[in-house]
């Protein structure tokens, strides 16, 4: 059988982009986050928020994230004021609700 094309939900490449000059710093994450690359995710967050009391993480481009990413976000939220930007529907919002992360950090729904 021919391998069918990967259909929704699409591109799974993991990228991290730091918006210049934002205060507090804003990091946009996209692609898949799992146990294999959560270390990169943690490093990028730590670097972006170094010396800052607050951090905004834009998760609207994330196509998959699991409990290892949730754990990393809990750790971030314990040390500084964490704001997460999420899509109005989709599994990230579900995940934040199930894990209780939405109670220790601010969740902003992107319109």
């Amino acid at each position: 059988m021919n391998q069918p094309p990967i259909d929704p939900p699409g591109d799974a490449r993991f990228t991290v982009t730091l918006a210049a000059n934002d205060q507090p710093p804003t990091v946009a994450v996209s692609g898949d986050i799992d146990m294999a690359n959560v270390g990169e995710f943690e490093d990028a967050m730590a670097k972006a928020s170094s010396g800052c009391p607050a951090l905004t993480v834009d998760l609207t481009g994330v196509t998959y994230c699991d409990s290892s990413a949730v754990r990393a976000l809990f750790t971030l939220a314990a040390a500084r004021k964490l704001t997460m930007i999420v899509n109005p529907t989709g599994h990230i919002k579900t995940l934040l609700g199930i894990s209780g992360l939405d109670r220790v950090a601010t969740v902003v729904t992107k319109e």
Partner: protein
Amino acid sequence: MVDEGVSSPANVRQLVADDVVPFGFAVRRTSPDATALWHSVTPLDDDRFALAVGYCPDTARLPALRARIVSALRAGGDPAAALSGMRPEDGGAACAVIDRAAAALSYSALGDAVVVLAAPDQPGRMLRPATTGRVDIPAGATVALRAGVARDLDGYLADSACAAAHPDVAVGRLVDHLAPHAEPWLVVLLYRQAPSPLEVTLPADPRSLAQLRARLRPWLALAGVDAEPAADVLLAIGEAASNSTEHAVIGAARPVELTVRTALAGDRLRMTVTDNGTWKPAAACPGHRGHGIKLITALVDSSDLTTSENGTTVDMLKELRR
């Protein structure tokens, strides 16, 4: 509902209220004169569905015609008998009874309407059944009933862009494909038969997780699993597989592998994640497993974890009924 990949001019396609069809089905009709087009999906029992589509230019005749065909299908389950009273001024109609457990299709078509079948492992090959008959439906195959004018719809159905895509995406692509020809009179009803079960065995290593998702995503689309439940099961399987990768590092005396099996039966998706690693008690592993098991419980309708000295198995079930 998945709508990715569907992008056609709004004036070409109109969604109507009864476009919400059971799991495994998708429908699109074209405008501007959608009132001449009709379709129906009726569950007969747990596994059998009666389907009908039609194009009736005399819209005054349409409601009674539709009611007569649908009630005949419900009563007797015989597509040829349901169409037996059709007159030339009734236009065209195709109807079918699908038994998804038996993987069989009985069908009949009259006028400008056809039933076609495309299998995912035979790209480019499309079966256009005779006017009336009964055929087996191969695993993962797409059945399309269409009524109205469509010059080259039927061949395109067998294109891998349709044959392997989620039914909603496939039916959108079919109708988009026709848009350049500006054919306004068309209704397409798709059905996707459950694909063969998927089985993936990989080293119990975190790097396997991305490979696992790369196999699961196209299978879930082929199985017609909608975006939201697909994201749920991708995560539930991912959490169970992540646990397996942790078992692998606990003093394993053997190379540890994880195996994921997914199988669709009716509206139910069964998933099994097994490994041959050594179970790590929850107390020895605070944090991750706690989150993982909690997530799995929230994401699927039932789950069961069993461990032995030979490994760990997580069985999960997700209901896909819309």
